[in-house]
């Protein structure tokens, strides 16, 4: 497999990259980890005239925590996320997503920004990030905007990112005390797997022990990751219990819209949404109350 011909650019700063992308317009394609773009180019699904590598922009490879906000540069790899002790403690569900993405070899290339902009319905990082209320920062040469990740996805491969914009970072508020999150992925094998179903959950507790806020996000059962709103409603203000989680899980199964394909039937996927939602809520609750709570 030979890559189609292109011109290669490697800007050293974000400003330079924005200017270049602005000039090249639709003829320019951003390259981060390459695990998606280069495969699509080899298969001739894409033949961009210009490829702009983000690999030399150091500020996009950093994780900063300041004023209660965690800022993850878009070029931080899944491997970096999985190896970060701070993130493992603060965002265990993101750690679970990052460490189950692809294979160890792919994780050393694939970036968080790439996992978002490629907008695959079964991607591993969007559900835990949406469940934590993450937002994305988009930059172009004339300015910057941020969007809730929840509203960023439009459909398979489609996002609200405009042609001249670069996703520069992902922002997540530091989780409050007495909160916990979890991400569970179901596949047919343990590595290099695309989720059949995945579920992320996030729970914050009131001092009295009732559920103050929760989010349940389902992946691979809709054209984009979706929030299971009726499951969240079931949980709101209630005292956590096995039966409450089961009721929320049943509602989550009704919130999704899975498809039949050769990997699994819609009926099976819906059932698994129920099972995984219950397990993810239980794990998130244990983290909210257990020693990992922060």
């Amino acid at each position, binding site marked *: 497999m030979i890559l189609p011909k*292109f011109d290669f650019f490697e800007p050293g700063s974000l400003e330079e990259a924005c200017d270049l992308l602005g000039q090249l317009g639709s003829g320019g394609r951003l390259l981060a980890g390459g695990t998606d773009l280069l495969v699509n180019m080899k298969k001739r699904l894409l033949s961009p005239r210009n490829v702009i590598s983000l690999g030399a922009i150091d500020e996009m490879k950093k994780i900063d925590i300041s004023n209660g906000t965690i800022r993850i540069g878009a070029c931080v790899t899944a491997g970096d996320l999985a190896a970060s002790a701070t993130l493992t403690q603060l965002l265990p569900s993101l750690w679970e997503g990052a460490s189950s993405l692809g294979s160890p070899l792919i994780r*050393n*290339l694939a970036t968080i920004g790439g996992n978002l902009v490629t907008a695959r319905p079964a991607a591993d990082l969007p559900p835990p990030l949406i469940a934590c209320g993450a937002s994305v920062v988009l930059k172009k040469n004339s300015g910057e905007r941020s969007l809730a990740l929840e509203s960023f996805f439009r459909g398979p491969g489609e996002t609200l990112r405009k042609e001249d914009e670069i996703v520069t970072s992902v922002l997540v508020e530091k989780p409050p005390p007495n909160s916990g999150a979890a991400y569970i992925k179901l596949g047919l094998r343990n590595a290099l797997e695309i989720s059949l179903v995945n579920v992320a959950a996030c729970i914050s507790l009131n001092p009295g022990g009732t559920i103050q806020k929760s989010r349940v996000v389902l992946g691979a059962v809709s054209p984009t990751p979706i929030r299971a709103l009726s499951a969240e409603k079931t949980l709101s203000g209630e005292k956590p219990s096995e039966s409450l989680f089961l009721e929320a899980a049943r509602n989550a199964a009704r919130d999704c819209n899975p498809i039949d394909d050769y990997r699994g039937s819609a009926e099976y996927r819906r059932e698994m949404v129920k099972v995984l939602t219950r397990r993810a809520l239980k794990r998130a609750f244990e983290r909210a109350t257990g020693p990992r709570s922060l």
Partner: protein
Amino acid sequence: MRKLINVTINGVEYELGVKPNLTLLDLLRYEVGLTGTKKGCETGECGACTVILDGKPVTSCLVLAVQANGKKILTIEGLEKDGNLHPIQQAFVDKGAIQCGFCTSGMILSAKHLLEQNPSPSEAEIRKSISGNLCRCTGYQKIVQAIISVPGRTEK
């Protein structure tokens, strides 16, 4: 248009003019002549093309040669010292962990990275570390046994 890159491969510095659409894998095999790195699926799924890039194992089929500019690359050819096999290579030979051999260089480089990070991995950690390397002969048992037997690995 060719781009000039400087790369260090197995400790040797190279200055090379490369086309932007050349992968690191093809650079190693066809421009530098290091054919120990194998070309399998070419889409990042089989791990036959594993090399260690700036300290981390990656699939070289999904890295452009131009992206390797300024970086250090270790391939299977860089492991032996003074004509002696690296202890992991020797363990693969001793334990019969090589059948057709196509996955071997990738397996050994993934194992090398693991043992550097974690000198006493459990069997589960070993299996996870090679989960991106496909052995189509299905010789995983011997491969895992070989990695377990590497001298210097402490029992857990």
